[in-house]
């Protein structure tokens, strides 16, 4: 066991898969010589050559569109969009093409492509470097959507995503790249290197898509979270002393409903947290499913704690970010509801 940052874990997964399979190619803006603005592709061009890892023109549409063509030709592109906020120019190619190709050709043409993108806020990136667009992917049939919360998960899930025969959206919570973030922005950052959760196995193995993980066992309330919010939830539970069961969904689609429903049926209460804006966020689907499937077990309304329905502001970042205080209040309100 060694420790890695999430950046290193992503880089390691790419390295392993490129080494294993010559059809894996990596490209995107600044990912070649420079190794990506977050350094997730550092060293890959040097190791695998310019035709396996290269810079692209600034065209997210082009990156994904070319990736689809390559995937249809039997390669396994793993492309990077520099920020999730810049996925919109590629959205048509993702939704209308990557996600539909297998279906519309009845399996004749497929799209085994991974689209990686840093997501979420907490780095003073303002409205165009902080967005969490996961719900825009989970509404799209034909896509899988994955989001890790630890380096080990980042590596294992990315390996699985590259192996997957279908297009996978791989969201990397950029606030977690260097260390877990508990939402207390005023405190110093702990590096993954010095954190228990930063440990990765010596033997890199894929982690199956579609399996959630219970990060903390508990009885009073079930918390559904993913990405950065997993760490905020852990902190909120600790700080409130509430015996919360915290589930890291890891895959948003397909959702591990068994783990989710099993937990809520046991605790009878549920809080959902995410950083994306509230309305029509992924939490809405979670709430809709949970109320439907756990209705007769629910003792309190399901609460959602989420980003406000505003763009992500710069100066007011910490008023926007759903930190441990807001999460703690929701936990308390939910366990106290009768």
């Amino acid at each position: 066991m060694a420790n890695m940052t999430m950046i290193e874990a992503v880089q390691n997964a790419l390295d392993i898969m490129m080494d294993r399979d010559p059809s894996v190619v990596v490209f995107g803006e600044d990912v070649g010589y420079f190794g990506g603005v977050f350094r997730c592709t550092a060293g890959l061009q040097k190791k695998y050559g310019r035709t396996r890892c290269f810079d692209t023109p600034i065209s997210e549409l082009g990156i994904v569109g070319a990736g689809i063509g390559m995937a249809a030709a039997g390669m396994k592109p793993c492309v990077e969009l520099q920020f999730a906020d810049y996925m919109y120019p590629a959205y048509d190619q993702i939704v209308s093409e990557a996600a539909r190709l297998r279906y519309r050709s009845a399996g004749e043409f497929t799209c085994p492509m991974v689209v990686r993108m840093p997501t979420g806020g907490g780095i003073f990136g303002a409205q165009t470097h902080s967005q969490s667009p996961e719900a825009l992917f989970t509404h799209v049939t034909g896509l899988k959507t994955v989001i890790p919360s630890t380096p080990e998960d980042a590596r294992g899930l990315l390996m699985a995503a590259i192996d997957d025969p279908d297009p996978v959206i791989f969201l990397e919570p950029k606030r977690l790249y260097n260390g877990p973030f508990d939402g207390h922005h005023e405190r110093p950052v702990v590096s993954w290197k010095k954190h228990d959760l930063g440990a990765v196995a010596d033997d890199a193995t894929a982690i199956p898509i579609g399996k959630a993980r219970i990060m903390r066992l508990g009885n009073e309330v079930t918390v559904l979270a993913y990405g950065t919010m997993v760490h905020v939830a852990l902190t909120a539970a600790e700080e409130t002393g509430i015996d919360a069961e915290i589930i890291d969904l890891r895959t948003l689609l397909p959702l591990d409903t068994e783990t989710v429903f099993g937990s809520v049926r046991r605790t009878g209460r549920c809080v959902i947290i995410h950083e994306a804006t509230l309305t029509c966020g992924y939490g809405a689907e979670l709430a809709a499913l949970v109320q439907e499937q756990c209705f007769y077990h629910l003792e309190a309304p399901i609460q959602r704690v989420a980003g406000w329905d505003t763009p992500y502001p710069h100066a007011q970042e910490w008023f926007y970010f759903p930190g441990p205080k807001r999460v703690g209040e929701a936990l308390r309100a939910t366990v106290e509801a009768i």
Partner: protein
Amino acid sequence: MTTGSKLSLHVPEPDWRPGDTPDFSNVQVPKAGSVRRPEVDEDPEAMRDLAYTIIRVLDRKGRAVGPWAGSLPDEALLTGLRHMMTLRIYDARMMMAQRQGKTSFYMQHLGEEAISCAFQMSLAKGDMNFPTYRQAGLLVAAGYPLTKMMCQVYSNDGDPVRGRQLPVFYSSKEHGFFSISGNLATQYIQAVGWAMASAIRQDDKIAAAWIGDGSTAESDFHAGLVFASTYRAPVVLNIVNNQWAISTFQGIARGGSGTFAARGHGFGLPALRVDGNDYLAVHAVAQWAVERARRNLGPTLVEYVTYRAGGHSTSDDPSAYRPKEESAAWPLGDPILRLKAHLIEKGLWSEDRHTQTEAEITETVVAAQKEAEAIGTLHDGRRPSPRDMFEDVYATMPPHLRRQRQEAGF
């Protein structure tokens, strides 16, 4: 410094609208054989003129003339004629089938048959087209079974894409025909990506991208050109300029540039403009572009000048926005009649053989249609199961879809 003088918006309009008499006498159509044929490795900058002319091989007398003539042997020309005739007869049957309610929708190629039929003859096994809905000639010329095409149009149980797609949205990997998308232009950059993959793997397969005049305005066209130009992808970038995009004349998409081929000049690409109703010219230019790609010399932009003689689709009535006579007045003629005249001129063909072949092909098409209809049509007979609706969303059906399929009762 303001001038005080007023600005005004320029909104291009076609020369004629319903009620007007179209007159193409001022349209410059270069003489057949008059345009030079550069070497495939000539500097693109040095062949700039080829984007502003029209490469033509067949002259008014049906003779093949000039440096672009002779790319195909006689046998192939006869086959080519048969392909085009097949496509036209197939189209006519399917148009009728749609009117009879056997399917929901259809799109024909009337007047544009030469382009896809001739282009396909320039490709090799393993190459891949990324077509739009108006290049079924690629399939016909590749020998794809007519019955299967009809099953797709009927969305019946023989439809290879299980009734999921709109009629004419064929797909056949084996025949180098990429699954058609209803979203215009998206496949242009995908073709470039496919070609890049071939180059990365150091393979020898090339791709062909297809787009309509109107659709060049879409973003994917730009992305395609940018990536093709940067990575010198082995791809032929085709633009079918049939003068119309539904009700919108080509001037709206083209704007201030003289031609669509000229778009390539912004990217340092060789750009050729060719008579799309001239089977021989289309083939010669396609072959030239394919050779360039195959020899790793990079992409070529080709504009095919043609005319959409029919409506946009069965949902469209062009007499609402253009003179009925425009099609007949269009100066490039009919591709089938022109190739036919050439073959007759060469002594390879006759009116009689033509009539006889027409009857033969009709018989073949009708037989195929019977076969397809014996399986079913959109509303009758054996049709894809509703179960099929849930398949192929993913390689493996995830639990939520299994549950939904169950809920749906299948």
